[in-house]
């Protein structure tokens, strides 16, 4: 894009790793220096543009420099070399409620915090009701904030920050606040924000939400830019890399990782007649059969399947705990089926991922990424585009003019009948 909202140009930032730090005058005088330190690069020559109106993510391990970069963008830290040019007003959600004075009331703190974030008094007054209601603290707004619960405190902080309505919003790991209800409200607010063409820069470790929320992602490692591109590509690359020590590349190009007590030996796709197939049709009944081998007895395993298009669009996932099918234990070899009565997928190429995890779904026994690729061929219902096939029917044309030849309704109905016959 020709006109980025934020341009990061050759930004480097070093921090001093103090071996000894003399913050007392005596020590400084005695040692004839203030401190002994080594410099280390938190950021090294990072350059990229953040296009206007996109949601942009920064990912990387702890200590990769993503928070430092966000602080450089927010003007809190000054880069040693290079510069950050931001076009538009900016608000940073680095820590919610920072700057609240505990003895002052919620209302006074809204004005205080709003002005720290750059709002005028008249602007805050105009939004006061919205801010209070969004945070859900109307009852307590004239109480000192020190009496607030930590949830209320953070909600009020978020509410002020999000209502600043900046052109650029910087967010650092603060989405994990509040209860589910408040989280939904936040997500809605973010969506409004994006729809209004504002730019959002996110830092998070929650790869799932980064993938779904961000348009583009920059991947930082040891202060250097390792990748920049569409969120699904970069997040996948990052997730793969962070599993790199345990990841095994299979001969067929798929990858696996996991502790290996139970392994998925293969996944079959069975067509309507029950024979293995790589090609199925939209609307077919399909069975996915997971073959596994458990060296030891595994209690309450959970099987999972996920679908992606070959271009990386996440389509669907289902695991057997959500499917309320949890065997007491498995041992030795065996298989388990997921029956799909009607394949609601439009024509295309799809990759299937399969996994066996423990009942908490936190421990992975085996994860097979892209274990099988299959084609879906166009059939009926034949629909015009996208991934999902909803089986929608056009019809019920209503018109006010009377001299219209009636008929199409009937034609559609009879053709449907014909389709049903051939399809079964």
């Amino acid at each position, binding site marked *: 894009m020709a006109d980025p909202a934020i341009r990061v140009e050759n930004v480097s930032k070093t*921090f001093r790793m103090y071996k000894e730090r003399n*913050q*007392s*005058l*005596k020590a*400084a005088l005695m040692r004839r220096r*203030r401190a002994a330190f080594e410099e280390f690069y938190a950021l090294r020559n990072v350059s990229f543009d953040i296009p206007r109106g996109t949601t942009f993510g920064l990912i990387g391990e702890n200590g990769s420099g993503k928070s430092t970069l966000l*602080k450089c963008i*927010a*003007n*809190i*830290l*000054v880069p040693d070399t290079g510069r950050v040019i931001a076009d538009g007003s900016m608000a*940073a959600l*680095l*820590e919610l409620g*920072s*700057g609240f*004075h505990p*003895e*002052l009331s919620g209302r*006074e703190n809204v*004005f*205080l915090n709003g*002005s*720290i*974030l*750059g*709002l*005028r*008094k008249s602007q805050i007054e105009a939004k006061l009701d919205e801010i209070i209601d969004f945070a859900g603290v109307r009852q307590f707004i004239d109480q*000192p904030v020190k009496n607030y619960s930590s949830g209320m405190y953070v909600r009020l902080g978020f509410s002020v920050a999000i209502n600043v309505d900046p052109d650029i919003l910087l967010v650092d790991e603060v989405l994990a606040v509040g209860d589910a209800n408040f989280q939904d409200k936040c997500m809605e607010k973010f969506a409004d924000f994006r729809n209004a063409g504002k730019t959002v820069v996110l830092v998070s470790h929650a790869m799932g939400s980064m993938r779904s929320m961000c348009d583009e992602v920059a991947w930082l490692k040891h202060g250097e830019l390792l990748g920049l591109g569409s969120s699904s590509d970069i997040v996948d690359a990052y997730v793969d890399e962070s599993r790199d020590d345990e990841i095994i590349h299979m001969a067929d190009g798929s990858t696996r990782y996991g502790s290996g007590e139970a392994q998925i030996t293969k996944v079959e796709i069975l067509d309507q007649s029950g024979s293995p197939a790589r090609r199925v049709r939209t609307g077919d009944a399909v069975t996915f059969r997971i073959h596994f081998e458990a060296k030891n007895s595994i209690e309450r395993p959970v099987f999972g399947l996920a679908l992606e298009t070959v271009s990386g669009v996440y389509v669907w996932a289902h695991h057997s705990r959500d499917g309320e099918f949890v065997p007491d234990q498995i041992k030795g070899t065996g298989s388990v089926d997921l029956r799909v009565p009607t394949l609601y997928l439009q024509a295309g190429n799809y990759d299937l991922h399969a996994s066996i995890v423990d009942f908490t779904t936190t421990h992975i026994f085996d994860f097979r990424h892209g274990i099988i690729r299959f084609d879906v061929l166009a059939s009926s219902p034949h629909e015009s585009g996208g991934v999902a096939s909803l089986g929608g029917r056009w019809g019920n044309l209503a018109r006010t003019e009377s001299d219209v030849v009636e008929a199409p309704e009937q034609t559609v109905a009879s053709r449907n009948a014909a389709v049903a016959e051939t399809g079964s």
Partner: protein
Amino acid sequence: MSTLSELRSSRELLVNLTLREIRGKYKRTALGQLWSLLNPAAQMATYSLVFGFFLVSRVGPGNPSGLHVFAIWLSTGLLPWLFFNNVVTGAMGSMVNNANLILKVYFPREVLVVSNALSWLYTHVIEMAVLVVVIYLFGGNPTIYLPLTALFVVLLGCFALGLGFMLAIANVYFRDTQHFVAIALQLLFYMTPIVYPPSVVEKYKNTHGALVYIYKLNPLERFSEIFRNTLYDNRWPSLTNSLYVVIVSLVVLVLGQAVFRRFAGALAEEL
């Protein structure tokens, strides 16, 4: 000067932070804002007792006002001193005390120092107003000198602010600064003619001329004379004293804010 334009653009923040300082200072106290008057009153009473009765300071009547009240004479020196002391001390801690804000939000950092100074200015103006009322009650008539006095209050604020800017930065790098400065301020208090008249020192002019010269370099010595002149004596301050404090205050302020700007960018790292 870009500091000024930054302050202008964030004046709402300045106002709000100042209000935070003023309101937050005496929250949860039964007497509330009254403390801002009681504190100086208590100090004034103590010093009046010690230097008015125990160690009798020979303080002549105001000339030409004819006022002859030790407590008023003391207050005209003590209140400006307290203002100076509070601004410097408050500014010095303003970076460290607001570390959470500096680390998380961007705004011109000068605002913290200036809002602290403004909150003390507010307190000081109230104190001075009360003092002026008392002066009228005891027969003084400082009316025509009040605008000039106000100007010197502002200049004293500038002087304190300039020092505060430098000390705020110094305290981030060396936390000893605050303890060191506390001692220095105590010394400075007695090096300034507040509880004793300047004549106590000036009588050594012929025998120890150099020491008296150094003593008179202290801008607070000049400030204290100026406030005594306008409020207690009810006459115009000397031109040399006035010029001296104008120049020193403005130079210190410009220098202080330059030092502050030079180091402000690195604050978030050092805190």
